[in-house]
């Protein structure tokens, strides 16, 4: 199943004003892996994610999604297999109704109308948002918008799910619901977030980005318990790993069962 593999080799990229964003990033993500991408603001997380779906192209180095290198010629295949959930769902929901928005991807894949309808229903059901079907997206709450944005991406049946800050701006219950939802997906997942506790729950592996380079890449339980590494990278220990605010005792940094 090589088509679910994400391979980035020596990726370099600078913004148009020549500020370097990524400086020699390399990693390989296997089929079905869930990987957390963490780092301070401006570390290059979003820029890296934009390379995975061909919104940006490397200045140096390569990005491969399964059998295809990410180039202008392979964009249709790349975008079919990589589903990207953007940071702000307002950017992603641009059609007049939820239903049309979710159908946008499948229609562009030129699927037959019955298949489009099936996918709309299935993906809205899987994010518990079928009841929002006829609503205009700009009238939804933050959590509802997020669910619909994820449904819109799932409707394209991607092999790989890429998410930028999926839990930002959500209330605790909506965040928990979203995490349960994501835990149920068997896709290869790459989740960039400042929500380290969420990464700890969902991703067995974590990559730490710092100033455009990879500061660490390993099992989440070890990476997110390394206080020195996290401080060096502009982060801090996840709340769950920090000592109890009352007695100061630590649980040892192991993810909750």
């Amino acid at each position, binding site marked *: 199943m090589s088509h679910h593999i994400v391979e980035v080799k020596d990726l370099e990229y600078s913004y148009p004003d020549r500020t370097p964003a990524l400086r020699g990033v390399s990693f390989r993500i296997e089929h079905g892996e869930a990987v957390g991408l963490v780092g301070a603001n401006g570390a290059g997380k979003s820029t890296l994610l*934009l390379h995975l*779906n*061909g*919104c940006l192209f490397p200045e140096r180095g390569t990005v491969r999604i399964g059998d295809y290198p990410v180039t202008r010629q392979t964009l*249709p295949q790349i*975008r*079919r297999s*990589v*589903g*990207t959930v*953007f940071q*702000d769902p*307002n*950017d*992603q929901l*641009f*059609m*007049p109704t939820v*239903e*049309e928005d979710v*159908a*946008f*991807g499948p*229609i*562009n*894949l*030129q699927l037959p*109308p019955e298949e*489009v309808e099936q996918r709309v229903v299935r993906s809205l059901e899987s994010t518990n948002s079928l009841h929002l079907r*006829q609503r*205009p997206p*700009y009238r939804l709450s933050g959590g509802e918008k997020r669910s619909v944005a994820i449904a*819109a*991406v799932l409707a*394209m049946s991607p092999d790989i799910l890429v998410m930028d800050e999926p839990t930002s701006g959500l209330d605790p219950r909506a965040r928990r619901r979203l995490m349960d939802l994501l835990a149920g997906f068997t896709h290869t997942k790459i989740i960039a977030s400042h929500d380290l506790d969420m990464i700890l729950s969902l991703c067995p592996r974590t990559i730490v980005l710092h100033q455009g380079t990879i500061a660490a890449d390993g099992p989440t339980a070890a990476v997110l318990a390394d206080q020195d590494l996290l401080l060096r990278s502009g982060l801090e220990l996840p709340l769950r790993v920090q000592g109890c605010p009352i007695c100061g005792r630590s649980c040892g940094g192991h993810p909750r069962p």
Partner: protein
Amino acid sequence: MTRIEAGIGDLDTLDRLAAQDSPIHRLDPRAKVIATALFLLTVVSFSKYDIAGLTPLFLYPAVLLTVGLVPVRVLLRYLLIACPFALLVGVFNPLLDREIVVRWGGLGISGGWLSFGSIVLRFLLTASAVLLLLACTGYVAVCAALGRLGAPHLLTMQFLMLYRFIFILTDEGSRMVRAHGLRSFGAGRTTIRVWGSLAGHLLLRAYDRGLRVHAAMLARGFDGTPRTLRVSRWSLTDTAFVLGCGLFLALVRFGDPVDRLGSWCVGVFR
């Protein structure tokens, strides 16, 4: 809620009306677009003094209003918003064209007043026809219909994007106005420098947002061709609707129904 946000609430009233179900709503959007275009052509083809000839055309919006379940006050509200433009166009006519063309009892009516009246009537007819088209069809379906009738894709995409970005732009705008209001403490008038900066920022923010929306569209396989969920089929009802509208408009334009009705009434009462 700022006034901008309240205005946005208004903006999608037509879309909400378009989601209703009525015989007019069920027609193919293309049929409604063609009928509206024929109607607009007929309205503008009358001479500038011909007020009587225009009056039977009010039957068309009246029927759409009733059958299409559009509340009259919604239509009137939109017409009220647009009417200053029409009034401005015609307001000088009575001053420029003072020649008396019609005598009604002892009252002489100048050509200027007649053409002013005709401009107002035309505005009422054309604006309500277009508003009713949108209220019974929906903006996106109208755009899709234009595309299927052969309008260039680039144009229909522009229309669609325009509509989508109005919400984004006003959203950004209202947030900036609120942020400005919170820190200006109602102090005096806003200087032109501050407004300039607000406008500049709004443009840049809207541009950035536009880029992100575009990226999101590309990520979901968008290739520049607008595709819609439901592709309507042209039925016999649609043909009948277009033919019926065409026949009615031809009758009003060339059949002189007002004169005939007038002569008939005079004949009856004589």
